[in-house]
């Protein structure tokens, strides 16, 4: 295996602190390769992230991205990549929501950098971040008719009629 370090003590501390505050039933956790990943219910996600930032010194939001698992009950998800620079510790926090209730609380109040990340997630997955100062599309045009990174959006533009499939071996 390639060498990567696992911060087992910091991971354990994070788990302990979280279960102390939210109870062991308030979240699930699993280690995926070198990083501990927490899954929290979406009602609590803001509270958990604020707690992690204040208590465990996760001062840096590395990234934020959306996910789509079609077929699951809660099919849309968001992943927060947290980094505590002082402790050299990274974790991921995930939260899931259903398609018809695609709303999450914004974290721009905790990390201003979440601004564009949340706009990107809205743009591609249609997750609305409530309380966001400027919730509109960022990379796609504003009247784009779909959320393109959802799994049901085809890679090729389905409205095109200038391509004949017989010429492309399909």
């Amino acid at each position, binding site marked *: *295996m*390639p060498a*990567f*370090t696992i911060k087992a003590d910091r991971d354990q501390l994070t788990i302990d602190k979280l279960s102390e505050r939210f109870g062991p039933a308030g979240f699930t956790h699993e280690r*995926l*390769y*070198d*990083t501990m*990943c927490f899954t929290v219910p979406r009602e609590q996600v803001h509270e958990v992230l604020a707690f992690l930032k204040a208590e465990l010194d996760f*001062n*840096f*939001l*590395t*990234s934020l*991205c959306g*996910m*789509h698992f079609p077929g699951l009950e809660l099919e849309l998800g968001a*992943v927060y*990549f947290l980094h505590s*620079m002082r402790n*050299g510790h*990274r974790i*991921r926090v995930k939260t899931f929501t259903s398609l018809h209730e695609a709303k999450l609380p914004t974290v721009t109040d905790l*990390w*201003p*950098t979440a*601004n*564009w*990340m949340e706009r*990107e997630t809205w743009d*591609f997955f249609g997750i609305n971040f409530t309380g966001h100062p400027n919730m509109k599309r*960022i*990379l*796609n*045009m504003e009247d784009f008719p779909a959320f*393109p*990174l959802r799994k049901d*959006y085809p*890679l090729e533009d389905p409205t095109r009629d200038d391509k004949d499939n017989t010429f492309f071996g399909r």
Partner: protein
Amino acid sequence: MKEPAARPDLWTEDQVPGEGLKELTTLNLGPTHPATHGIFQNVLTLDGEIILDTEQTIGYIHRAFEKICERRPFYQITTLTDRMNYCSAPINNFGWHMAVEKLLGIDLPQRVEYMRVIIMELSRITDHIICNTIICQDSGATTPFLYVYQWREKIYEVYEEICGARLTTNMGRIGGFERNFTELAWQRIRSIIKELPAVLDEFDKLMVRNRIFMDRCINCGPISAERALQWGFTGPNLRAAGVDYDVRVADPYSAYKEFDFAIPVGRSGDVYDRYTVRQEEMRQSISIVRQALDKLDKISDKTTYHADVPDWVLPPKEEVYNDMEALIYHFKIVMGEVEVPVGEIYHCVEGGNGELGFYIVSDGGKNPFRVHLRRPCFIYYQAFPEIIKGGMLSDAILTMSSLNVIAGELDA
């Protein structure tokens, strides 16, 4: 004469825009403006020459890389990573390879790691040369852009010798390199390492204590360390603000643990600090390349250029035609019949302008289920309005070039 300060809180009374100046100007800076070095639009609200507000529009060259990744086998995604930060494409390529190797559990021979480090550091030098010479260009000094820029060409000649391409390199494969470095490539690397320090010294002599350049850059577009962290700055821009965060040291990847180098930091996070931090990083990179060459000299093996992973490294073409096993592996790789573990990983490297991260979710299929690219300049470019607010229009241009915003990476 007292010079006008860039920040409104430092304005003296006579510099505050007068009550008589009620008329504000709206200026469209971009999308295609020669001074923006890329395609992005800023709609500025100006009071005279003072910027009051900025509205950014990005996405003009958005190519949906994250979506395309979901339809491509792992080894074909490398070509997409070239097109993000094209000023230092090999770092992106290797970053992607390292992410996949982490997912697959591939361990690389030491020689390959050193070869990667050499190329990554040379790419960092090209990235910084581009950025710093453009800062000079935008502040009115054309010489560095013409003279130091040659060295970027010389490094591109190294790429050319290694992989055949110059800008969008697609260098290396998952598990190592596609072929060994030629003797000419080694010669070119050695001559660059020998001659570049003198050029950098000359560059410094021309610019770094130049009164005009200092007056132009000091206190132009500053950002504090706290704000930089809140805005998600990484790379030279964060280090210029005084935070010594470098992925090569914080989370050492490849062989960086074995090298001795310093992380230069600035203090005020202005254009001048960003410039000097990059300047020093180039010297550190040269030192890393030199150390790597020394370490390579101590390794007797001169032929290994990839890990022993026939599932991922294409066999030589002559063997494919004459050898049964090679043909099978060739077929397996090209048709994507190779097993990938289920899992998710995040791997980050220190790119030319910050922490470049790859988040892969694999469901075991031949394509990744989801790829998220953490592009440093997408994240820090959103702080641009705050940095330039209250400054002059010409400072905004200089600030933008010093932030090293690369349109290809911004829009991915």
